[in-house]
């Protein structure tokens, strides 16, 4: 019994450390526009892209887009949607369903909000809370499925290329007292391990949020 409680406490402490680190990291990203984080004992940093870096990304994007557009084996999103529909998977219907769920969620939110404002019955509050969570989960399922279905489209692939190119430009590694660019070229990044690239890309998403627009 005592062991269980000790184990629980350790777990809670570990969770709180994990959470604090994340919150501290996020605060730094908001205030300083940079994120410093360790991976396997090495310190890395991702910074907000400068105007020059964004221009470089745009140039890369145009070049890559035209290159991909010439390749007839890469389907456009609209082609994929059409093909899926012929095979009985209707993405437009999925989006329509999502809009219906959104409306249902908003109605439930209004009722729950009213109950909270008017000190409603706890049982009713729980019913609406659970209903909203169920609706949100169904919406999330649709979004994940849609993203997975369209992941091979030209648009999705272009986004991944552009995002990884931008990550390559703004990632630094600490060497002694200095910060140096981790990857000098896009090929250097491609040669790195998937594990390192994925870990850095996940952290970079905090700083690079909405920094790129791949709408053609």
């Amino acid at each position, binding site marked *: 019994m005592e062991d269980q409680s000790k184990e629980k406490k350790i777990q809670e402490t570990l969770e709180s450390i994990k959470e604090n680190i994340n919150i501290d990291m*996020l605060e730094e990203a908001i*205030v300083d526009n940079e994120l410093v984080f360790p991976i396997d004992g090495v310190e890395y940093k991702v910074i907000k892209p400068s105007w020059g870096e964004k221009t470089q990304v745009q140039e890369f994007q145009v070049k890559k887009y035209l290159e991909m557009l010439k390749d007839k084996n890469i389907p456009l999103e609209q082609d994929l949607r059409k093909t899926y529909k012929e095979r009985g998977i209707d993405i437009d219907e999925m989006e329509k369903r999502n809009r219906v769920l959104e409306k249902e969620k908003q109605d439930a939110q209004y009722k729950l909000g009213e109950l909270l404002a008017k000190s409603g019955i706890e049982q009713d509050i729980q019913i609406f809370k659970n209903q909203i969570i169920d609706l949100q989960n169904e919406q999330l399922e649709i979004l994940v499925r849609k993203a997975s279905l369209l992941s091979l489209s030209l648009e999705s692939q272009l986004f991944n290329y552009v995002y990884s190119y931008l990550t390559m430009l703004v990632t630094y590694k600490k060497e002694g007292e200095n910060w140096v660019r981790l990857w000098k070229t896009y090929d250097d990044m491609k040669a790195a391990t998937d594990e390192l690239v994925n870990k850095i890309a996940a952290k970079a998403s905090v*700083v690079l949020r909405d920094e790129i627009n791949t709408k053609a």
Partner: protein
Amino acid sequence: MLDVEGLLRKLAKTERWQTIFAFSRDSKINFFKNQYKYTSLQILFLNYLSLYYVLNMDISAGDVDKMVLDNTTYEDAYFWYKSKKDKKDTTPKKPEKKVQAVDDVNKTQWVFKNPIKE
């Protein structure tokens, strides 16, 4: 997967950031290293600072129980209700149409293109 928005909300409702935000209403405080060209993350954070400020004011005023802060489902629901209710309260009412007496309605009405010569 990193839940950035969830963490952003946790940070925005901390006592420290709420105090900084409250002070910023009376004096000029720079929240961020950059003073202009805010990133979308910074704009989202400012929105949440403002939302939680309003929520704390509503709790203090007794408009809603503090249990609303228990989870984001309650918070979102209350914000949605409040925004809809406020909209309803501030929408100007259309002036009521005057009901004409039945006798008046049944009377034949003439519209003269030219004024009647007396």
